[in-house]
């Protein structure tokens, strides 16, 4: 019998081996170092433009040791080594433009490591900094933008970056056959860019909006010499699981893309901008490997513990408190910290449908919030790990500090409910409306994974006679129902933006339409006015005032029972990395920053190996890392 088994397995094994994993390796074109272009005159953006720039009205940003400190990477950084990271998804495509490409994973890894825009943003001050373009110009009326592309900029294959690349990228993004309508909305706000010379490109916006410059200048570029032979459909097909050349510091070789399994970045030694002060100490790992383990958080964590992954981001407080205490963390081989930053926390909580009974009544919404004892949940279930959220823009400068925090207050809630007409309780203990006789019963749609967060709320409401029925739905069905406004309450989270953009979620005219982000049905004339002003306001201070006022108005209507907020990242990593003193950048504030700013510290790695061999203890880190909160205090 045993022999048969062996033969059997061998047969199967041979029949399966090979074949499926043979990756068709296209030859990566060998970099051709094109010589410096000395033919283009300084006026046209060639060498020597720097001296003319300010006379022509161009501006730029110069690196300054005092202000910029280590914000562009630490001078102690060493190049080398591999960073292993495991994500819960494999990208749906390797493109960063077109269908299915608007995922966090794509923008944080592929876009950030392989592609560049004309300008970048200062990680701490958010000022514009040179990237592919060294200088830029904004016209008086804020409608016309000019960029001078750095004549040194090169694609992977050695071709120089020119104005034509900007135009080709814009054309591609405006091609409707890439099946990504949002691109056409964003870049349709501009006329087609014009190549003023080989290195100078200008673009005109169709209307005044302070966001226009941001959108256009940070747009990731693709090479014209490849795009010129492709239309939208062909681009989608050809580059779904292969990578179009970029200008960035990393390259993905075709045979390093193992579909649905992993993809690996290799650092380029010939990155055109590797010596600039903005990039010199960034991008330190020789290889960055991103593997996928779909939908199985537990296995991901086990792999981290087995050192098959170097950094780990802890999402749930339960894991952080209950499951991070073992030999490696106790002995300091594995470090864990909560890193505070100014990453926008986003907006999460229970979203009410204000179009329908019972939440068309403000008093019922208020009562819900007074009964929803999030502090108790934080205490009893979340180990006091979180803060409370009271604003659409929690934890940012845009938060209106006068918002009602809606602390647990059952007396107030009962009062409000009585006012609203819910005075009696029926035999089962549910509140009944005194006139209509309607039982105060509504439905909440959630995904199964959030069950444990919702059942306690259900019990809290039950005590006071509100009947909240829980209904599970899969993600797509749930969103479909929410977008068709077929819900009473739902549990959602909007991600936070560095520059708030309330247009899509607070406009009154969107309230009566389906399929947009005004899921609550929020209407306010004053907010509409403010939104009109916001778009054309170039003064950041005034913009903050506007958003704060909007936030106040929103909080007064209270279409969301805000839940808890977290303004830190819970990170764990094997103790072999060096990192800047601020660890994660001010506004990204997540483990992604390790990809860009961290490096392998050989000494630490040796100490770690030795310690693990001899079971020695290494020093532990304090649990909280608060560089940015301190920075904020000092710079106020």
């Amino acid at each position: 019998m045993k022999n048969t088994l062996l033969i059997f397995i061998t047969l199967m094994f041979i029949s399966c081996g090979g074949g499926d994993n043979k990756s068709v390796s296209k030859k990566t074109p060998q970099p051709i170092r094109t010589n410096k272009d000395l033919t283009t005159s300084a006026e046209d953006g060639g060498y020597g433009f720097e001296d003319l720039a300010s006379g022509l009205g161009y501006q730029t940003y110069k690196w300054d040791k005092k202000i910029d400190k280590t914000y562009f990477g630490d001078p102690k950084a060493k190049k080398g080594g591999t960073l292993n990271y495991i994500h819960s998804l494999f990208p749906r495509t390797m493109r960063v433009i077109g269908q299915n490409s608007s995922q966090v994973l794509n923008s944080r890894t592929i876009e950030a490591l392989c592609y560049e825009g004309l300008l970048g943003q200062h990680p701490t001050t958010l000022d514009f900094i040179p990237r592919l373009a060294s200088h830029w110009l904004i016209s008086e009326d804020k409608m016309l933008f000019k960029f001078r592309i750095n004549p040194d900029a090169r694609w992977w294959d050695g071709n120089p970056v020119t104005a034509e690349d900007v135009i080709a990228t814009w054309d591609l993004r405006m091609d409707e056959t890439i099946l990504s309508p949002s691109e056409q909305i964003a870049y349709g706000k501009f006329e087609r860019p014009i190549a003023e010379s080989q290195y100078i490109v200008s673009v005109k916006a169709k209307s005044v909006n302070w966001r226009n410059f941001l959108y256009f200048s940070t747009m990731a570029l693709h090479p014209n010499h490849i795009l010129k032979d492709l239309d939208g459909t062909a681009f989608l097909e050809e580059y779904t699981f292969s990578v179009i050349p970029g200008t960035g510091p990393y390259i993905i070789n075709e045979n390093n893309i193992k579909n649905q399994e992993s993809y690996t970045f290799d650092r380029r030694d010939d990155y055109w901008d590797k010596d600039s002060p903005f990039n010199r100490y960034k991008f330190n790992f020789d290889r960055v490997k991103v593997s996928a383990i779909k939908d199985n958080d537990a296995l991901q964590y086990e792999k981290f513990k087995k050192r098959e992954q170097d950094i780990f981001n802890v999402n749930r407080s339960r894991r952080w408190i209950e499951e991070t205490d073992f030999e490696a963390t106790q002995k300091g081989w594995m470090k864990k910290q909560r890193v505070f930053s100014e990453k926008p926390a986003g907006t999460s909580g229970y979203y009410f449908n204000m179009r329908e009974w019972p939440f068309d009544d403000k008093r019922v919404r208020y009562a819900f919030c007074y009964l929803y004892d999030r502090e108790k949940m934080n205490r009893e279930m979340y180990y006091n790990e979180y803060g409370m959220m009271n604003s659409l823009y929690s934890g940012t400068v845009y938060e209106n500090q006068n918002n009602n925090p809606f602390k647990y207050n059952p007396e107030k809630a009962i009062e409000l409910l009585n006012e609203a007409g819910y005075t009696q309780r029926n035999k089962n203990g549910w509140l009944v409306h005194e006139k209509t006789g309607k039982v105060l019963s509504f439905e909440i749609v959630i995904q199964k994974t959030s069950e444990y967060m919702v059942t306690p709320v259900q019990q809290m409401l039950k005590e006071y006679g509100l009947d909240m029925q829980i209904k599970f739905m899969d993600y797509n069905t749930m969103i479909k129902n929410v977008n068709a406004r077929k819900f009473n309450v739902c549990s959602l989270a909007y991600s936070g933006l560095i520059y708030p953009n309330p247009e899509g979620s607070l406009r009154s005219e969107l309230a009566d339409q389906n399929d947009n982000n005004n899921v609550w049905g929020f209407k306010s004339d004053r907010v509409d006015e403010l939104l009109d002003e916001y778009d054309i306001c170039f003064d950041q201070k005034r913009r903050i005032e506007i958003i704060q006022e909007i936030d106040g108005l929103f909080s007064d209507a209270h279409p969301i029972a805000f839940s808890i907020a977290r303004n830190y990242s819970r990170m764990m990593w094997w103790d072999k990395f060096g990192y800047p003193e601020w660890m994660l950048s001010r506004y990204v504030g997540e483990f992604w920053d390790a990809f860009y700013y961290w490096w392998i510290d050989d000494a630490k790695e040796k100490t770690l190996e030795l310690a693990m061999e001899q079971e020695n203890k290494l020093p532990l880190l304090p649990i909280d890392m608060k560089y940015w909160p301190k920075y904020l205090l000092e710079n106020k």
Partner: protein
Amino acid sequence: MVEKNIVEEKHLSLLQKRWLKFKTLKRGYYALVTLTFLYCISFLLPILINNRALIVSYEDELYFPILKGYVPGQIFGQNVPGEAKYRELRKSFKQINKGNWVFMPPYPYSPFEDITTEGNKMYEPPSRKHWLGTDNTGRDVFARLCYAFNISISFALILTIINYLFGIFIGGSMGYFGGKFDLFFQRLIEVWASLPMLFVIIIISSIIKPAFFLLIGIYTLVNWIGMTYLIRAEFYREKAKDYVAAALSMGQTDLKVMFKHILPNSLVPIITYFPFSIVAGISALVGLDYLGFGLAPPTPSWGQMLDVGLQNMSKWWMVFSPIAAQFLTLLSIVFIGEGVREAFDPKEYSRLR
């Protein structure tokens, strides 16, 4: 007419014989007794395991919250906005000692109360207070386990019975009439079986909230096929036998032949299959709950408990409890099944010499 009576009498006595034989098979018999007993008891759970008092005597007046339902705490002079908190009431009555008393169920925790209720903590290990500890939202695991037992068995029982009805009618007709009728239904069943049930469930659950009977309905959609095939085969075989021809020749209608003559004769496989069908039903509910298409939360269910348990593997009581409960139930049903089969089989198994 006379003949018919005899048949019935014989039939009855046959059943009795089988029952007597079943009783001698200790393992199956005891499993049946225990399971039936537990299942009956489980209908009394609200008075055995609950946080609502059975009787409250307050200022010389008797209250029966368990029957009445919602009783505001203020009635008993308790300062709470909603329903009375009987465990605390009992404590305070004892302290004040004015002759007021509360009679609580023997296990005074409900399967729903979580950290919201003062004093409940999550992840409490088993203790005298919480026999099997508490889960990730502070609910009592033992209470949930017991309530889930009742729901699981009821689900499986009803599901099986409905499947049998479907099977007997459709499968019986298919086997009896044969020919084109049979062929048509066979194709229909094949098409039906290829339906991606997950989609059907997603569609249905996006429209209506999954409730107990809805789930039974959905599951019947999938499950009736197997039973139908079984009964079809049985009827097909029986139909060829002489007694059917005899009955038909005496002018009996098709319906009568099917249900009076053939059905009793094909009972053996049908009954033998019953316990396994129950087991399948229980597992089905566990699977549905695990996928999140089961009963609406916070309904206690083994599938949900197992799911939560596996996410908290370091809390052994949360993993162990649902697995053990399911194991014991399945095992006793299997024992019953073995016993039934042996009792119904006319042949003695020859133990080898």
